[in-house]
């Protein structure tokens, strides 16, 4: 794992090595033989990990959820390349400078949406025809692939817009742990059953992932993946086993909850983080600035 610079506590925690089974497991998840596609598989975890260690984690979570969403909406509605550029820069500033996420990690997390954006925008930027029309064309044997400056420009603006939207949401995801986002949803009167399910599912993701990593490792150590056929069998067995164990765990969980006086109403203690008026003022100024830019440039 790359060493985040401003997080001495977490670092010492990571360095404890063998003792920190959990963290190690997640690392294994990213690097083990079955996850050779790079950091994509571990990405969900690393975002969660960075969210817990963000320096702006102590900001009011309602603010951190509402602000990016507002920015996201503005970015889509205003539809202006300058606005998008400013949003990209501002969100990167918040995440990297304020949040203390290493630039390298930020780029590596952003590289995944960028790939998707570029591939999908390519389809918009080019057209096909039997005749050599358009400003630029390329003969491909069966016909012509063509594009024009206007199309390229439109595609470029689209990339900017989508990228700005993504970076606004990433700012939220990289600074607010899921449990806090869920509590914001709860305050926004999302039905209780959904909020409770989200809480339990979120916790369970980690428990079941650990379980599956352990089972995979033990299968691997017994030649469970020696050829394709065996791999398929092993995969099926592990999947079945995870189902059985998750049912067992659900029972054990329920017992443990009842033992602590659970009576059908799942309530978690949340620390109130006060809304910083300065932050709200700055956010309002930022949004006003977006409108100004839009007004001047369109």
């Amino acid at each position, binding site marked *: 794992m790359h060493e985040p610079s401003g997080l001495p*506590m977490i670092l010492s*925690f990571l360095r*404890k090595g063998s*003792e*920190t*089974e*959990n*963290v190690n497991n997640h690392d294994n998840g990213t690097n083990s033989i079955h996850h050779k596609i790079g950091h994509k598989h571990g990405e969900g975890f690393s975002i*969660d*990990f960075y969210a*817990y260690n963000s320096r702006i*984690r102590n900001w009011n979570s309602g603010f951190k959820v509402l602000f990016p969403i507002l920015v996201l909406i503005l970015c889509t509605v205003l539809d202006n390349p300058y606005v998008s550029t400013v949003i990209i820069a501002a969100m990167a500033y918040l995440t990297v400078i304020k949040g203390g996420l290493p630039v390298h990690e930020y780029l590596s997390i952003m590289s995944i949406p960028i790939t998707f954006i570029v591939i999908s925008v390519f389809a918009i930027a080019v057209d096909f025809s039997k005749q050599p029309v358009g400003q630029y064309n390329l003969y491909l044997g069966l016909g012509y692939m063509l594009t024009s400056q206007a199309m390229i420009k439109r595609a470029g603006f689209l990339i900017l817009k989508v990228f700005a939207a993504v970076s606004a949401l990433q700012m939220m995801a990289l600074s607010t*742990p*899921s*449990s806090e986002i869920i509590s914001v949803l709860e305050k926004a009167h999302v039905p209780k059953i959904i909020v409770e399910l989200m*809480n*339990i599912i*979120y*916790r369970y993701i*980690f*428990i079941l992932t*650990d379980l599956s990593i352990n089972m995979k490792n033990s299968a691997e150590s017994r030649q469970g993946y020696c050829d394709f056929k065996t791999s398929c069998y092993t995969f099926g067995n592990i999947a079945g086993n995870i189902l059985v164990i998750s049912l067992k*765990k659900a029972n*054990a*969980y329920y*017992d*443990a*909850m*009842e*033992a*602590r*006086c*659970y*009576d059908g*109403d799942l*309530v*978690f*203690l*949340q*620390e109130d983080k006060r809304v910083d008026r300065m932050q709200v003022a700055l956010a309002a100024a930022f949004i006003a600035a977006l409108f100004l830019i839009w007004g001047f440039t369109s």
Partner: protein
Amino acid sequence: MRKTILEVKDLHYAYGNGKPALNGVSVNIHEGERIAVMGANGSGKSTFFLNLNGVFTPDRGEIVYRDTPVNKKNLNELRKNIGIVFQDADNQIIASTVLAEVGFGPMNLKLPKAEVLERVDEALEYMNILDFKDRAPHYLSGGEKKRVSIADIIAMRSEIIIFDEPMAALDPINASMLEEVLSKLGSEGKTMLISTHDVDFAYRWAERVLVFCQGKIIADGTPLEIFLNNEILRQANLKQPTLLEFYDLLVEKRILEDEEIYPKSMREFNEIL
């Protein structure tokens, strides 16, 4: 004579498959007792604990808490006063931050938020993990999770704390840290029940040992009474603590005179020598 907190009378409990897990268990638990619960795997210890706490409803028998028989209505009173630290912390930790996790019990007691926060702080400080507050349980190590799961119960301020195999899967440093916490709790007069397979630990820590075998308590006495009784040890898949074995060996080889002062710790052993 110390006051009786909990009276268990002729408890029977069978799981869904009809196999009886508890087969007539009767025991009285007094204030401030340090009880080790021993017995082979599957002898009914965990089932007994879950019955004590009211999670399982016994098929037959009665639990009397502070002179009031427990029924459906006052069940929460029982759960409030008897806390269980489960063997696998991952089966107990439910929330996504340590703060919310330790606050889960007190929140369920419907306490005002200020008091919940105060209790959480106190419990975290007790376990020396105040700086864990904002961390996520899934990024903690096994030993750290165990400490959180103990803080869970301390925050509930229950009268009796039950530990289900707390030493399992802990490294020696974490295990000795846990023992310190146990003696600290003991010195504050908390009543504790600990199930364990570690005969050496039970011998030096407990003042009373309950031995389970096939859903029954087959012995109930001081550690010495239990560990000097070979018949019970054999029945319950136990063995003698190392110190006792040593002592016997030294007496047998006539290095030591048998004065029947059995040492409880290495220090006491040293004094005898």
